[in-house]
């Protein structure tokens, strides 16, 4: 059962983000290259392929979970086995053989680390390749804020101390199950029920790890919390679970980054993210997704089937999703917000870029239940090659949602004439006082724009990068500084070779 091949892991770390006015300028002036296609050899503990009750029991036992959680997983498995694959999407459902996937993999080594020297050099070079600055690498490694990776390793960090002082809990999901089972039990599955969709059911049964955040009443989390996900192994699925709770009056900004090495076969990523904002609380969740998209012929790449949803449970609470999606062979996700509290606010800012044979079917669901609730949707699709990019959004106004408002803007930018952009806005309103606005545009990068920039000495590919970043600016501006820089680079790099 234990074999030594490299596998899936996820890395959790904290960043201290300093924000100054210069940032904006710096953001403007930075444009460099990077690539993520590499694998890391770290000894892993991998479960045999296949999905049965035994698999679920094995995962639960490995993680030393309480009985109630095992029961919960088993229930999810039963749901999963009964559910059919969805058929409403705007692409061909790939054939996923659920028995050909390994559902559990964890790094084998679980050392107690005291300094950087003791850290697996492979892991360090992974961080370096990911472009994580050395200081952070130290934090990550020395400290192993990588607790999600080596989840029994727990070394004190200044960051962690700082968070602890304020009562903030930020840990791997597994650790939280051990240390704060009451919180997990209270909230797990309350926003994304097991039966929500087939991938949510699957995740609920086999989720491996993930992150847990709790911000206590009235606390403004003093730093950005972030998680880096990376799929490393062959034939493994990644099923992480994130649960974030902002108690009354709390604030947190959470960042999630994803990369994966190049592989010929498709890998699956089926995560579930649940956000809970109580009265007056605010959660900002940002994602830069750069899973391996497959090659230009559509070979390989990640299937990214993620269920993300937040609930504005209390009055005057706010949840905003920002996503920059450039990777994955197929992206299929609709981060949504249930606006239950009166005066609550939901936002969704998205840039989805597809090229070659990539498919993105993404958008949001804004469910207005409370009075005076507001939602805003800004979606920017960019399609190149023979890719297909769909916006699919649902705005639902419940009968009690008096005076609720939604503004939706969906823009599509086409590069070349073999790609497709589609928008599917769904509106269900059961309250006459609601105000809904929808704007949509489709444009192409103009020859005149390209000529203007190249006439100033700018390389055509860079010119496209600039134009695309300009187009996506409204969304990129929502990201914290470091992510914004990374996202800009990603957009520019992702378009290399798409011109002409």
């Amino acid at each position, binding site marked *: 059962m234990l074999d030594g091949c490299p596998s899936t892991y996820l890395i959790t770390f904290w960043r201290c983000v300093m924000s100054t006015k210069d940032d904006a*300028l710096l953001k*403007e*002036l930075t*444009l460099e290259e990077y690539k993520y296609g590499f694998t890391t050899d770290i000894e892993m503990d991998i479960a045999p392929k296949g999905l049965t009750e035994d698999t679920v029991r094995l995962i639960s036992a490995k993680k030393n979970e309480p009985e109630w959680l095992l029961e919960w997983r088993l229930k999810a498995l039963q749901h999963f086995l009964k559910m059919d694959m969805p058929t409403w999407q705007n692409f061909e459902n790939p054939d996923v053989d659920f028995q050909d996937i390994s559902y559990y993999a964890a790094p084998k080594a679980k050392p107690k680390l005291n300094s950087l020297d003791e850290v697996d050099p492979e892991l360090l070079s992974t961080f370096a390749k990911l472009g994580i600055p050395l200081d952070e690498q130290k934090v990550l490694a020395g400290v192993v804020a990588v607790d999600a990776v080596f989840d029994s390793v727990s070394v004190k960090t200044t960051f962690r101390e700082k968070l602890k002082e304020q009562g903030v809990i930020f840990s791997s999901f597994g650790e939280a199950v051990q240390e704060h089972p009451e919180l997990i039990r209270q909230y797990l599955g309350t926003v994304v029920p097991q039966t929500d969709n087939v991938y949510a059911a699957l995740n609920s049964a086999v989720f491996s790890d993930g992150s847990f955040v709790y911000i206590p009443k009235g606390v403004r989390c003093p730093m950005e919390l972030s998680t880096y996900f990376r799929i490393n192994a062959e034939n493994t699925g990644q099923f992480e679970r994130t649960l974030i709770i902002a108690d009354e009056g709390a604030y947190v900004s959470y960042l999630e980054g994803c990369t994966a090495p190049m592989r010929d076969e498709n890998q699956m990523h089926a995560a579930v993210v649940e956000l809970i904002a109580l009265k007056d609380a605010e959660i900002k969740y940002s994602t830069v997704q750069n899973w391996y998209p497959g090659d230009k012929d559509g070979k390989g790449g990640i299937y990214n089937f993620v269920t993300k949803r937040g609930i504005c449970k209390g009055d005057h609470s706010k949840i905003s999703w920002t996503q920059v999606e450039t990777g994955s062979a197929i992206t299929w996700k609709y981060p949504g917000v249930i606006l239950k509290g009166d005066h609550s606010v939901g936002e969704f800012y998205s840039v989805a870029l597809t090229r070659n044979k990539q498919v993105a079917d993404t958008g949001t669901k804004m469910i207005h239940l409370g009075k005076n609730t507001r939602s805003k949707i800004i979606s920017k699709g960019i399609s190149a090659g023979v890719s297909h990019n769909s916006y699919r959004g649902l705005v639902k106004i419940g009968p009690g949602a008096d005076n609720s408002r939604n503004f939706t803007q969906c823009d599509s930018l086409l590069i070349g004439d073999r790609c497709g952009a589609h928008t599917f806005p769904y509106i269900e309103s059961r309250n006459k006082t609601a105000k809904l606005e929808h704007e949509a545009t489709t444009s192409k990068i*103009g*020859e*005149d*724009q390209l*000529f*203007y*920039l*190249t*006439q*100033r*000495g*700018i*390389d*055509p590919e*860079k010119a496209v990068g*600039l*134009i695309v*970043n*300009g*187009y*996506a*600016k*409204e969304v990129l501006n929502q990201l914290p500084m470091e992510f914004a820089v990374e996202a800009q680079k990603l957009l520019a790099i992702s378009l290399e070779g798409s011109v002409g």
Partner: protein
Amino acid sequence: MLSIKNLHASVEDKAILKGLDLEVKAGEVHAIMGPNGSGKSTLGNVLAGREAYEVTEGEVLLDGSDLLALSPEDRAREGVFLAFQYPIEIPGVSNINFLKTALSEIRAYKGLPPMEARDFLKKVKEKQQLVEFDAKLANRSLNEGFSGGEKKRNEIFQLAMLEPKLAILDETDSGLDIDALRIVARGVNQLRADNNAFILITHYQRLLEYIVPDFVHVLYNGRIVRSGTKELALELEEKGYDWIKETVDA
């Protein structure tokens, strides 16, 4: 510096330039005038390498080497600058970031590292003052929502920043108010040097009062049909183009 011989060019298979000759030496300013549709902007586009414009005959040398063999970006890097008759809007791309990118690319072509951010900003400030270009505009998205005159001024600001060898100004004066015209002219005059040259495409003699050209040419029906000094511009202003058309068409 620039040597154009028997240049023929067409757009969508329609011949526009029909045997154009022009010699521009370093340090010179040439004005090109001519009726609407005679091919002035076409000449600018051909020199800058715009895709839709096909050269069917003739040669263009820049400092002795074949300009037509280069891509538009390489021509720009070699020092060809076209101030557009109708500058393009690029939403979301800040003027500053655009200029920084352009400058870095041109420098990289010459084997120079990108300018230090501080030096760059200093240069921006200096050139902004030279052409009295509002700092607020410099930080806005490239030409987005700029007035016609602001766009033209931005072209001159870019020109000042990029310091090209050969600048072609396509009707930069049209749409400028009197004050702006003076400012732009002053900017160009200060940028004039022994190692660069300007081609001014204009309909108005007035510009040439501020920027005094060494030569004035009349472009008509795809060819330069008359050349002279600044007095020619005065004559055109007075008499229009008919007398030239008559002699050419005859």
